């Protein structure tokens, strides 16, 4: 048997290889295209994060994790952080859903105008917007002064330096992250679906509940995930609008990094926060997935 001859087995293997390559060619192509971005994330994000987490382990006893997971101070702040993030996500959803819907059905050029109005504050510095809210929401702020001039209230409403102020400020900053995923999904919706449902006798509420809402759920999920994850890391807005009375994890982590140079404990707190975030994300995904199938 000469070296160049091929056996049927080898032929079959070659065919299999070619078929495998054809099937996965696109995958490799997109992997190569995503290469620079992946490398960027690896070098500038994953490796530093791994290094920070590595610092949080000290031998086998894990004192940093023991403290982060048993000390009621950190557990309560973790719970508050997740709760605030959840509230902001829901507020964003309630406010963004009708806006995105309106944008998706308006005739040109109104969607573009609306998007410009959403993008303008989006491009403004968070710090500037936060100070702007301080001017509006204060005891002698524009809102309270207008309401008392109109005789609606006698004592100023407590809008600033508490949880209300933090929720308003954060919802405002994060709203675009909810509007855009919803708008993207709604614009692709086939309007005939709703018309067909109406034609078959469904009420407006039925159309919304059984057709529109399930079909826009991917946008809801994407938007809520974005807003939730971004909320968890919020720092300057709660510090300035909460009057020091609203506590979020990022502030405690920053203290450990900058004031006490206790990077091991900072790493442990970050890991706990990351773990909790992932857990919530997975549960949220499961819930919404289940919902979609049920619908």
């Amino acid at each position: 048997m000469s070296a160049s001859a091929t056996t049927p087995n080898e032929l079959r293997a070659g065919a299999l290889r070619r078929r495998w390559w054809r099937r996965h060619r696109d995958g490799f192509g997109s992997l190569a295209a995503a290469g620079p971005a992946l490398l960027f994330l690896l070098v500038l994000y994953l490796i530093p994060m791994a290094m920070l987490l590595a610092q949080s382990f000290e031998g086998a006893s894990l004192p940093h994790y023991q403290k982060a997971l048993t000390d009621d101070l950190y557990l309560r702040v973790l719970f508050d952080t997740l709760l605030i993030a959840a509230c902001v996500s829901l507020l964003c959803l309630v406010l963004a859903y009708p806006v995105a819907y309106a944008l998706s059905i308006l005739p040109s050029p109104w969607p573009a105008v609306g998007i410009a109005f959403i993008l303008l504050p989006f491009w403004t510095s968070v710090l500037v917007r936060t100070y702007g809210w301080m001017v509006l929401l204060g005891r002698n702020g524009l809102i309270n002064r207008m309401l008392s001039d109109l005789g609606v209230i006698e004592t100023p409403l407590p809008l600033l330096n508490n949880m209300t102020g933090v929720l308003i400020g954060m919802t405002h900053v994060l709203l675009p992250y909810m509007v855009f995923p919803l708008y993207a999904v709604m614009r692709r919706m086939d309007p005939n679906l709703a018309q067909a449902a109406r034609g078959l006798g469904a009420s407006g509420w039925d159309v919304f509940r059984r057709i529109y809402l399930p079909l826009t759920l991917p946008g809801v999920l994407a938007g809520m995930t974005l807003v939730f994850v971004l909320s968890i890391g919020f720092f300057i807005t709660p510090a300035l609008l909460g009057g020091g009375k609203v506590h979020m994890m990022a502030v405690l982590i920053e203290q450990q990094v900058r004031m006490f140079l206790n990077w091991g404990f900072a790493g442990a707190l970050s890991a706990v926060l990351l773990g909790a975030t992932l857990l919530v994300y997975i549960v949220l995904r499961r819930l919404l997935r289940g919902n979609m199938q049920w619908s």
Partner: protein
Amino acid sequence: MLKRVLAVLCAAGAMSGLASLPAQSQASAKPSQIVVNDSGGATQQANRKTFYNAFEKQTGVKIVNTSPVDLGKLKAMVASGNIEWAVTEIAGPDAVTAERMGLLEPLDHSVIDLSKFPEHLRNRKFVFPKSVYSTVIGYRSDTFKNGGPKSWADFFDVQKFPGPRTMQNSPIEQLEFALLADGVPMDKLYPLDVDRAFKKLDTIKKHVAVWWTTGAQSAQILIDKEAVIGTAWNGRYHSLIKEGAPIQIEWNQGAIKESAFGIPKGAKDAYWGQRVLAAMADAKLQGEYASIIGYPGVNLEATQHTDPKMVPFLPTNPENLSKQFWIDLNWWADNGQQVQERWARWMLER
């Protein structure tokens, strides 16, 4: 012919070599620019107009400014050996921490002249005492027309001086203020009785409308009437008073402390960092700096060079100085972490 050419070449080479020797050693030591890190904002502008411009004129080296002040970044720079700063400002108790962790180069006393500084500061090894500032009581003079709070006891007395308060969101100084309000004399504060301080703080907690985090916020809160009595760094109040804001400063029992500068351990431009500090130690420049911003240096001759109109607003003005107490930064460096956690826990209680 060839010989002559070679000779000329050699001579030229030797000459250029000789000529370039000192120039070259200077060039390798003398950078075209160095980075000085400070807290930015109004203090950076005042630094620029005085110390930085003088340094640039003296040395021909340009100063590039960065901010904010960040102890974590200093540690990261020293640990990685990639040190951007020739010299950096260091806030409050952080200076003690930085010195203890070995993050600073020793001060070169042959370059920096500390002979006109107060005696207890003349032998500083690592931390350069650049200027002093004080956390003082401020109140709205239109709310308290017949005189405002004169002490921390008054500050804590919500019957005598009703109205919302603002304090810094930090245990540092708030514990001292509470103890003073509870009757501890200024010279018996340290070591702090932490339990007693928190017990006293309990009495004022619900009257504190805002726990401020940034310097700009602290004074603005009084302008916006979110609070009518508060604490802030003296320069913050002064700049608003200068603009005509109805705010009065009470120096009594103010917390005075130094704002420090230091050279990161292993900084490649360390020598030029020493030269920047030398400019900051200069009496005339310190006087000009204080005239702009109200934060005096500690060179004892600086007052002669300070605008007389500014002197009443300086924490080091003898009349003000005698009423205040010095923060014990060592106590805070020893106990900061533990007390900070207790503070956070206390804040979470309703």
